[in-house]
């Protein structure tokens, strides 16, 4: 080779191909890479790398030949998840695995499948006080409808995404985009959503949401009125009036019951909007992404002029949002017009306290799906018996080892927090539908009683022998161990 390569290119001598590898890239084998100018052997498996980077302890993947010696992982301490159980390429093996293990003297069976869920979706909780869009409006990804705005909850807005009507009831493109959106959300990736007549949000499970390009930091501690109640004592004597701006209920200290009790002097302050009870106002502005979930960027716009009958020059006024993220301090001049001044030291602490009491704002992703007849038939010859067994809590349902909440009523409709599942646990098929792991764990004796495929039960040690297709991860500490023999309650 006569070419001149950049100085940070190295030549790999791990095989006779002798690749030139640029910094940050891998050679033809994808096994050796140039990391910071050093030739490094990299494991090709993303799962393992990610777990490492997150500091999750791992039991090393064994490449040794010969039989499993059983010393590294004791059988009953290993739980086989359904992740990858149904999709192994190119050596395709059909699901399910049905694995037996002995736990505390009880023979347990885990039926491990990857299910195709056409009836599935995501319940998305976005911690924000900002108005994301009117209830019932469409939520879109790449312009396609993928869900809708549902209820507002305390300090959060719920979106319902996916469901069979978006997946298969609309155009092909709608189904495909819905499937991709659900898949990415469930696998912890960031997704951009726009709400008709509303905001644009970027969300990823367990991460702060980004609303109209602005990262949400904190959830509000309470509504404007509640905030007045909580902080009235700390404000008393340091300021003459306080307005806590909130899209739901804006609170005013001098009129509020809490202020009255402390003997705060009347200021005659007049607020736009509809007065509910003294010191509590609804609809001070339009919903929006400004102060306290309103469309306000200048808080003075919600105040009517001060009247000489009540107000006085030098009156000290604090205006603050329900998260303490926005605040402004004013003093009235001789003409009783508010003039913005620097926030006095004495008040800084109370504003900081509001902020402190607001928990980190996050987006949470709950996968919800229904295990239909054919999936249940993979577990037992008589599908209804599985439903019955799950309902009677004889059978524990987990998704990639994470506990699933089972809805009361018919069928097996379950919800699971995707952040409690291993990464990239979800797949898809072009139907379109999501592929999610699901495991049913029950006593072997109960399994036989409900007409299980007992002929296909394999001992755990046997399954562990096929280690070239396996990755072992340590279970997350917040998850109960799925193989506990006495299944009592499905975690909520």
């Amino acid at each position: 080779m006569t070419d001149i390569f950049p100085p940070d290119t190295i030549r790999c001598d791990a095989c006779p191909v002798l690749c030139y590898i640029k910094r940050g890239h891998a050679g033809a084998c994808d096994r050796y890479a140039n990391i910071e100018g050093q030739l490094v052997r990299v494991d090709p498996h993303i799962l393992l790398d990610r777990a490492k980077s997150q500091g999750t302890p791992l039991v090393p993947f064994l490449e040794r030949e010969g039989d499993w010696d059983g010393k590294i992982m004791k059988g009953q301490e290993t739980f086989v998840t359904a992740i990858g159980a149904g999709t192994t390429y190119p050596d395709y093996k059909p699901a399910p695995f049905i694995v037996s293990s002995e736990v505390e003297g009880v023979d347990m069976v885990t039926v491990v499948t990857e299910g195709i869920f056409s009836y599935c979706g995501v319940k998305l909780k976005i911690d924000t006080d900002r108005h994301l869009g009117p209830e019932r409006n469409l939520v879109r990804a790449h312009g396609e409808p993928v869900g809708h705005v549902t209820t507002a909850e305390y300090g959060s807005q719920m979106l319902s995404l996916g469901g069979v009507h978006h997946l298969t009831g609309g155009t092909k493109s709608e189904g495909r985009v819905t499937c991709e959106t659900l898949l990415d959300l469930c696998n912890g990736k960031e997704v951009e959503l726009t709400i008709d007549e509303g905001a644009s949000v970027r969300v990823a499970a367990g991460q702060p949401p980004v609303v109209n390009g602005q990262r949400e930091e904190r959830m509000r501690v309470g509504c404007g009125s509640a905030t007045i109640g909580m902080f009235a004592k700390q404000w008393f004597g340091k300021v003459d009036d306080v307005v806590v701006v909130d899209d739901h209920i804006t609170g005013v200290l001098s009129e509020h019951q809490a202020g009255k009790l402390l003997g705060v002097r009347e200021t005659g302050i007049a607020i736009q909007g509809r007065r509910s009870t003294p010191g509590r106002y609804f609809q001070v502005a339009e919903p929006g992404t400004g102060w306290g979930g309103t469309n306000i960027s200048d808080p003075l716009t919600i105040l009517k002029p001060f009247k000489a009958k009540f107000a006085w020059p030098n009156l000290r006024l604090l205006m603050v949002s329900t998260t303490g993220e926005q605040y402004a301090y004013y003093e009235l001049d001789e003409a009783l017009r508010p003039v913005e001044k620097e926030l006095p030291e004495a008040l800084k602490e109370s504003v900081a306290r509001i902020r402190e009491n607001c928990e980190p704002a996050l987006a949470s992703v709950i996968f919800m799906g229904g295990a239909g007849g054919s999936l249940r038939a993979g577990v037992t010859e008589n599908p209804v018996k599985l439903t019955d067994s799950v309902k009677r809590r004889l059978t524990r349902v987990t998704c990639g080892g994470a506990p699933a909440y089972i809805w009361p009523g018919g069928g097996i409709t379950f919800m699971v927090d995707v952040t409690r599942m291993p990464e990239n646990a979800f797949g898809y098929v072009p139907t379109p539908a999501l592929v999610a792991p699901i495991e049913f764990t029950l006593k072997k004796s109960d399994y036989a009683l409900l007409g299980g495929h007992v002929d296909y039960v394999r001992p755990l040690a046997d399954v562990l022998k096929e280690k070239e297709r396996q990755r072992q991860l340590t279970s997350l500490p917040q998850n109960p161990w799925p193989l506990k023999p006495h299944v009592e309650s499905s975690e909520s």
Partner: protein
Amino acid sequence: MREPALIRMLPDGRRLHLHDGPIDLIIEANGSKQEVAIAYEAAAHRFATILDELCAELPLLRGSVQKNSAQPQGVTAHRMFAAVEPFSEHCFITPMAAVAGSVAEEILAAMTGAAALDRAYVNNGGDIALHLAASQHYAAGMVERPDRPSLFGSLKISTADPVRGIATSGWRGRSFSLGIADAVTVLADRASAADAAATVIANAVNLPNHPAVARVPARDISPDSDLLDLLVTREVGPLPLPDIKTALDAGVRVAETLRNRGLIHSAALCLQSHTRIVSPSSTPFFMEISQGSLLHA
């Protein structure tokens, strides 16, 4: 330091795993115990020198094949050259476009030459050489995106079918692609031919100068790439439906041409969840876009 080649049985006791440098083979032979043992022995023996043989002629194998190009010496290299030669008049191609399929084919030939087998396959990272004696078949799943490994279809090849090679190419794969297909899976009479054709068809699924496609010269990533400064695809953003159709149409036209020339048997072209099939209408349709045997909820 040269890492020694790996020759081992997988823990299932059935399949043979051969690994050396960029070559990674999963092999399974079916037949009498004795014949299978002979076949595995032959595969391992042939494998021992194959990478060195190829590397000895690497500069030639990385060069564009044209009308009067010099022929390589090695048997495997010759398979590569023969596989890409039919395309050399129409596009830039180097024998490297068929390396994976040719290696699989060469190892399979060593096995079937040494032993009488009912069935065998050599899978080189998804490029597969097949041997099927009377009344046998081979089932494979097709994956569209390696980063989202789900089966988009399955195929079943029987002894009577004229297919003994399967190969997949796309920009998401390990090798560079000039096109934007997520995956093009090709069935041909041999693995080397399937490999070369999959590369050519995947290159043809394209939208030149499209703003949603990021491309860089191959040598910016791999300084010794056989593709020199040709622009290879690094990222494809979401495409509007008409553009997906345009790109797939371009790929289908090439695939049809190759089929009419007898170079391939059939092909499945995938781009952003849209799949097109090119296959002979006269023979039974054995490539199925389906869901494998996952359980439907």
